């Protein structure tokens, strides 16, 4: 038996739960062994009572023995998860995937679109030059805004954008990014595919490296079943890698964006 496992399936105790925006839940889950080996950008695969498939959710933060996850109710599985009571245990396979690569000498722009914002928090916290870095968080409207104060505590400046202008800057994260991109060395982003594609184009034009965290429907979560395929190119060759094992973080220039 291996002495140190890279990931394992273990019970986590729910120690805190709150609804931080409509349909968006913030959970803190305790497991001393697996929380401490979790890195920014990794995810957990949560068994949902009564469901055949687990639900993959990115890690928002790690504090000692606990991991924090923030997710939106999207269907029955996430609704069941949101109803977990404090003190109950959930079975998680954790930590999974490869996280972001952080360079201590670089200033970053951390970009989160909607429910893509949470994984940026632990990343920002782990960044040596956080106080010289930006967070750009995009939401549909004022009632969907989450984690603004959390990011405010960590980075130099948090810019919130809303699609309808009901809060912060009226527009998309890309508008805000274009204004500050000269002040950063690299961009990390998580959010809807069209947003990631647009962010990646701005980075490419400005010759800034960009890492993106992708999402795809998942099965095993560890790279065995091959369902969460993501098309990437190396040189001229295109191939399907897998979000769970090869990602979820990829270099933006390698991703072949879906239509």
């Amino acid at each position, binding site marked *: 038996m291996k002495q140190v496992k890279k990931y394992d399936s273990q019970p986590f105790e729910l120690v805190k739960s709150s609804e931080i925006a409509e349909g968006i839940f913030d959970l803190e889950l305790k497991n001393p062994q697996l929380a401490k080996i979790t890195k920014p950008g990794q995810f957990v695969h949560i068994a949902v009572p009564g469901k055949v498939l687990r639900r993959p959710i990115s890690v928002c933060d790690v504090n000692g023995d606990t991991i924090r996850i923030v997710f939106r109710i999207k269907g029955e599985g996430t609704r069941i998860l949101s109803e977990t009571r404090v003190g109950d245990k959930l079975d998680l396979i954790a930590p999974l995937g490869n996280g972001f690569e952080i360079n201590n000498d670089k200033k970053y722009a951390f970009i989160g679109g909607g429910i893509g914002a949470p994984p940026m928090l632990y990343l920002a916290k782990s960044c040596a030059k956080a106080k010289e870095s930006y967070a750009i968080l995009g939401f549909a409207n004022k009632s969907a805004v989450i984690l603004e104060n959390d990011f405010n505590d960590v980075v130099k400046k948090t810019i919130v954008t809303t699609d309808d202008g009901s809060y912060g800057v009226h527009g998309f994260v890309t508008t805000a990014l274009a204004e500050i991109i000269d002040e950063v060395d690299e961009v990390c982003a998580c959010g809807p595919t069209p947003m990631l594609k647009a962010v990646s184009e701005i980075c490419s034009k400005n010759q800034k490296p960009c890492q993106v965290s992708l999402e795809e429907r998942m099965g095993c979560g560890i790279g*065995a079943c091959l369902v969460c395929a993501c098309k990437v190119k190396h040189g001229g060759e295109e191939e399907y890698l897998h979000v769970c094992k090869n990602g979820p973080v990829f270099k933006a220039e390698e991703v072949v964006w879906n239509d």
Partner: protein
Amino acid sequence: MTDLSVNICGVKLNNPLIAASGTFGFGHEYSEFYPLSTLGGISCKGITLKPRLGNPPPRIAEGKGGILNSVGLQNPGVDHFIDNDLPWLSQQGTAVIANIAGNTVEEYCMMAEKLNDTTVDMVEMNISCPNVKHGGVAFGTSCDSVASITRAVRSHCRKPLIVKLSPNVSDIAEIAKAAQSEGADAVSLINTLTGMRIDIETSRPILKNNTGGMSGPAVFPVAVRMVWEVKKAVDIPVIGMGGISTWEDAAEMLIAGADALQIGTVLFNDPYAPIKICEGLSAFLQRKGLKSVSELTATIKPW
């Protein structure tokens, strides 16, 4: 102590549980949880003569009690498997079953030849994949085509040959008999049932392939029925699979007629399921006063 080991076509398995093809890759990922010798065997991800890219995503959808997949046989090809995955896998203390799929009968034969002189313990001929345009299930749905491909591959294959059957047929027992008559050493069943899910907001199928193969607890009763029908029709070993997720399911499938079992979808929910199933089976055998798990096989008393 109860004996969980079984003998399939002269290959001894530590216990009757084999990881089902397509759910376990080539074993590396699950070896993080436990030694692979926890399993009786591993049926590797289906391999083809040349590497295959697989289908575009999404490749998975969920239904009540089951899942649909449409991976489309993404794999690095038989040569890569032999050179890179097999040497490690053969040292893990578990039986290694190469699952092969082809576009043509000739491709199956060429792969069987390539595997003859390797450390692979058995070959599982996949003529039941619902997710590829050519070959796949097309070979597995008529007695004539099953007979002719089994005859052809048998003449090239020196390893024990398992034929994996599709449930998407009108009479699976007749198909099993056709495989047996042309030299199959065992049959395994069931592969996935074809299915579909649609997003009602967009009217788009969830799977990019539109349809996929259904597996999981919901298909278990269908699998039990088919294993029972096949066991009555053939004399060769029957490897039962389809929705097994608990030790009770495992016992039921053995009683229906299975000589060994494959488990797949349950691993996505609980990677440790094989350990729990083996423990449960052992306790059950003890309670029933049985010494060996094989004593359970085909003990069904039909009305």
